[in-house]
């Protein structure tokens, strides 16, 4: 069994092998591997005893279940109207300048992927982005460059970098 197959098996043990457990399993793979490889999806199909086409068909429906290679950190820039009006293009430009990639691309080091996404639910603090699960809001080109700097300096991912949203009790 390869490493990926073992991971899929572990996730299937954890969540269960019924169809209703498909999404949590796929989400678990994406959390670890950043995207779904064919190998992983075929293994999921075996574990759940459904066809691989069913797995791919379901995964490809959801924009957060990527089936193409993604970097360690997936940056999703909100492109819906409020963020668009508050300068999301300047944020994308700043990210492109720092990482030397265009929207849809992954850096050669496989550290970052830059994507656009639909409404993230931070319209009052636009422009907003997600880096993996962490939201960053009220961005300016200078602020996003500083944030990317933090991620790059922390290249091994030793520390978990927390977004700028604090929740209150």
């Amino acid at each position, binding site marked *: 069994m390869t490493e990926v197959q073992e991971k899929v098996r572990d996730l299937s043990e954890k969540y269960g092998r019924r169809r209703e457990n498909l*999404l*949590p399993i796929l989400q678990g793979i994406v959390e670890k591997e950043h995207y779904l490889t064919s190998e992983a999806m075929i293994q999921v199909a075996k574990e759940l005893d459904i066809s691989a086409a069913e797995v791919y068909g379901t995964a490809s429906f959801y924009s957060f279940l990527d089936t193409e290679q993604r970097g360690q950190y997936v940056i999703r820039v909100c492109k819906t109207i409020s963020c668009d009006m508050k300068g999301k293009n300047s944020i994308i430009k700043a990210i492109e300048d720092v990482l030397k990639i265009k929207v849809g691309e992954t850096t050669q080091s496989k550290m970052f992927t830059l994507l656009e996404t*639909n409404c993230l639910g931070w319209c009052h603090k636009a422009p907003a982005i997600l880096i993996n699960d962490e939201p960053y809001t009220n961005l300016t080109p200078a602020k996003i460059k500083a944030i990317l700097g933090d991620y790059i300096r922390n290249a091994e991912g030793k520390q978990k970098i927390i977004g700028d949203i604090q929740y209150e009790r």
Partner: protein
Amino acid sequence: MKDKNLKIVDIIFKPHLVKYEVLDKTVARSNEDILKEIIDSGLRGRGGAGFPTGLKWKFAAEQKAKKKIVICNADEGEPGTFKDREILTKVPRKVLGGMAVCAKIIGAKRGFIYLRGEYKYLLPFLNEELEDFNKHLKEIGLDFKIDIFLGSGAYVCGEESALFNSMEGKRGEPRNKPPYPTVAGLDNMPTVINNVETLVYALMICSIGSKEFKALGTSDSRGSKVFSISGDTPIPGIYELELGMSVYDFVEEFGDGDTKAVQIGGASGFCVPRKKFKETIIGFEGIPTGGSMMIFNSTRSMYNVLHNYLDFFEEESCGQCTPCRIGYQQLKKGVEAVKHGEKNEEYLQQLMKLTETMKLTSKCGLGQSVANSFSSIVNNYREEMVY
């Protein structure tokens, strides 16, 4: 508030001094008593569609089934809406309390929060709250357990039947209705699915009483509502306001002095131009909203706004039914062609006909509601579409 026509309300976010106090007092009452209170209050769903909450609960309670389900719909994806995130962050116990009251009435033992993938950062916090809450339910002897199901970035999953499919591990495609969720929802079990905000109001009505709630709002739109306000405003954010105000009063308070249009109800809602501010009421008798209020000032091109919406729907269409899948592509191509002078102005009429077809023939709200924003923008800002 400087304007008397707008009233700020504090039902949703008001902190409780004693943990789970309202829930404990409510579950001590009889089911009939609670249900009567909620039906009396005239509370309608706060997710946008506005179905009477008490009736929904009653229908589910009347179903004879061994297993029933309560789902809190936290798949808030409508552009310009962000109030559910705030409610879940500030008063999660009230949301959970609302679910528990519903479970008691309909006889459900399992509950889920369907949390959109974009809000995954809330998981550790919400799981902590849930652990405490599930423990408390055991202590008070209510046989009900809540879990969180995480979405994965699909707007259409906010549609209730698409949400069930998603939870069943399938593509999030809406189902045909009927059967309605209260008859056959998740795994064909009778299911009550309510928006985050609706559940909090249901709980709070049990505390403040239907009379006090009904005293707010109008005969069609009882009570208050949490609004998500964004766009060209000096004070964007989340506000709980009494229902039934005019757009004029709203803009007086939240506009930047140069407001040209207000989009009510998000990309699937209506665009109200300045000349109609006074006559337009925000509520079920006028323009209903799930809370999204986006303000545009005179520097904004309404063509860009419309194009952005069409882009959104084109991507988020589940692709299951043709009118919606192809319709959005054609609408986008069409407005681009008119803008670039490849088609003449009359072509807009043809596009308008297409939106009517989509409204009639699409399976769910995603395809049906395009006619709202498309016609309200194109009719009121025709020049901007052409030149």
